[in-house]
């Protein structure tokens, strides 16, 4: 990647510096609120300034830089089969889906329903088969399972249906422990999991400037067990952050750096991504928005902020407010994905499957987004210019009035130069009529049916499943 630089840079060097400095000032003077005194004590012992009366932890500049310096600038989020390893910090842009929604647009009934465990399996199977979606985030809540084995089951169903890297949120420390134990069995050993982690965990501070104790417990557990994480702030401009984009960015930057810093206190060298889920509020009626153009711009700016510290970024993009895969979904997602991708974000989540401002998913949207991402990736590849691609010789050979269709040069380059979509209608009008006027949704629905039919069987070995059953009691869903 990178032939088409310079990429989109929403912030000038001077603006970038101003936002960074404001973020650092927030950390040094205002600080973050951590209610749990045990965690405050740990941070104090590590060198943070702690004001226990106000539950504040402040980060002085010198100390902040010293601790941030321990964070790795590149690391890998592994896939289980080695085919989709995510190499962060090396200039690549990877796209993935987004998670923990509660509702699905179910095309088999045409209506919306609550999401179930089988939706985790199905979305994992879709991501597994869709080439441009490179990692899987546990896509939805499973309303049909109880809290006791929740994260055993949602991670199990995900890992049983895709070999791509699986990332998810954990509700509590117990859930994180279950997830780790499960992944260790599948890795056939804790050390092997630590060496090549194929699962990672998303945690979030609460904007503005608050980190919950349970979040810190999960974060600490993960980083001390070699599980990559992000502590990704999700400020809403105009609601939980200032109405100015620069203000929201400054606050989010402080929150994101706090997350990375605390992770490095827990485990120096911990694999942690700078997190960014900057969103906006439509203040006309207080409607939460994730498909706004400003969300794309802020997540693009966040890439610049993360790169100031050489940190890989977990950015967000490609969401929509639309309730169905429709025209609005198409353009909101395209603009957003492209805006963030063109800054060179390492890892962009939410770009597949999510509709309804992050509340719903649609299987069809997964396969449609796979196409949008494909086009976006083509933009990032840029235009390759060299002696061969300039094609003087073949232009001379064909000469005026000829054509290039059957030239060897054409055959040599036709696979690399063009993005070939699967679903976009490109046939001529007559053929389109003969085919019964297919549209994006009908074609997407067909492809979903095909993929899910082929993916009914799980991917995990039978003996692994036996080991998992033995390790966990009451896991009747496995």
């Amino acid at each position, binding site marked *: 990647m990178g032939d088409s630089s310079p990429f989109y840079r929403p912030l000038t060097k001077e603006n970038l510096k101003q936002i960074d400095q404001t973020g650092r000032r927030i950390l040094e003077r205002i600080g973050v609120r951590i209610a749990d005194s045990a965690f405050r004590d740990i941070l104090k012992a590590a060198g943070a300034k702690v004001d226990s009366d106000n539950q504040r932890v402040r980060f002085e500049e010198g100390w902040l830089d010293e601790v941030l310096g321990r964070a790795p600038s590149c690391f890998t989020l592994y896939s289980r089969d080695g085919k989709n390893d995510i190499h962060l910090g090396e200039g690549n842009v990877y796209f993935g889906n987004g998670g923990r929604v509660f509702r699905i647009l179910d095309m088999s009934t045409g209506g919306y329903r609550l999401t179930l465990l089988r939706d985790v399996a199905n979305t994992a199977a879709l991501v597994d088969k869709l080439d441009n979606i490179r990692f899987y985030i546990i896509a939805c809540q499973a309303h049909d399972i109880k809290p006791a084995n929740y994260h055993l089951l949602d991670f199990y169903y995900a890992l049983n249906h895709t070999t791509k890297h699986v990332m998810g949120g954990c509700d509590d420390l117990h859930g994180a422990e279950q997830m780790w134990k499960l992944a260790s069995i599948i890795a056939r050993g804790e050390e092997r999991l630590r060496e090549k982690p194929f699962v990672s965990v998303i945690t979030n501070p609460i904007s503005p400037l608050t980190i919950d104790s349970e979040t810190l417990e999960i974060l600490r557990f993960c980083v001390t067990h070699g599980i990559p994480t992000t502590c990704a702030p999700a400020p809403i401009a105009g609601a939980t952050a200032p109405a100015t984009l620069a203000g929201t960015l400054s606050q989010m930057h402080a929150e994101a750096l706090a997350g990375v810093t605390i992770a490095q206190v827990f485990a120096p060298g911990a694999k942690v991504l700078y997190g960014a889920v900057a969103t906006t509020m439509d203040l006309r009626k207080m409607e939460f928005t994730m498909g706004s153009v400003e969300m794309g711009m802020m997540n693009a700016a966040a890439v610049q902020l993360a790169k100031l510290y050489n940190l890989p970024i977990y950015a967000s993009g490609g969401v929509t407010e639309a309730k169905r895969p429709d025209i609005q979904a198409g353009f909101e997602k395209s603009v957003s994905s492209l805006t963030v991708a063109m800054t060179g974000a390492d890892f962009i989540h939410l770009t597949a499957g999510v509709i309804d401002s992050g509340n719903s998913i649609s299987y069809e949207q997964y396969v449609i987004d796979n196409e949008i991402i494909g086009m976006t990736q083509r933009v990032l590849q840029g235009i390759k210019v060299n002696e061969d691609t300039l094609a003087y010789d073949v232009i001379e050979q064909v000469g005026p009035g000829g054509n290039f269709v*059957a030239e060897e040069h*054409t055959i040599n380059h036709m696979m690399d130069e063009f993005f070939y979509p699967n679903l976009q209608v490109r046939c001529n009008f007559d053929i389109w009529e003969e085919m019964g006027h297919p549209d994006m949704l009908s074609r997407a629905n067909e492809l979903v049916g095909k993929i899910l039919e082929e993916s009914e069987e799980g991917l995990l070995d039978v003996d692994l499943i036996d080991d998992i059953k033995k390790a966990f009691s009451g896991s009747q869903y496995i």
Partner: protein
Amino acid sequence: MNEFEALEEAVSKGDIKTAVAETQRALDAGSEVKSILDKGLIAAMDKVGDRYSKGLIFVPQMLRSAKTMQECMKLLQPLFQEGDVTSKGKVLIGTVKGDLHDIGKNLVGMMMGGAGFDITDLGVDIPPEKFVQKIQEVEPDIVCMSALLSTTMPSMSRTIEAMQKAGIRDKVKVMIGGAPVTEKYAREIKADSYASDAGSAVSKAKELLGIL
């Protein structure tokens, strides 16, 4: 094992140099011209056509194979006996009077040439009398007319009328195409066939000549 396996593979891959060398080798070894054609070249093109219709290869690869076959044919042609069929049929193609557009017409000509038809391309802005004169001269099996503009479409009808007046309408099949042209219009002006794109022009032409 097919004695022309190497030739077949070279044609499938569109490797002109190897295919021509293999053809020469087969001739030198005393193989019959007819069996080189049938078991080597045509067998290869059948496979290529099959792979294309299954979506396994792209148009340029198919055309490249066709071009390879044509190069091999140059060696065989002088050796053919009377009665050996070497072309699928003769096609005369042109954009009608008043119309200077030629991309669609060129694509059709290219695809038909690739499929083994013998193409004579008259170019653009061809008046009815020129079509008539060339039909008499070339004696094609099919005449293809193209128009991009709704304003030049009537030239198609006038060309057919001119063919009737000259008494040659029955001697050829007429196929038309172009963005504004429809199946319905083809029926109205009594053309024999209409093709909506370059790919279907080939299958329509084969249909017209009964060589499916």
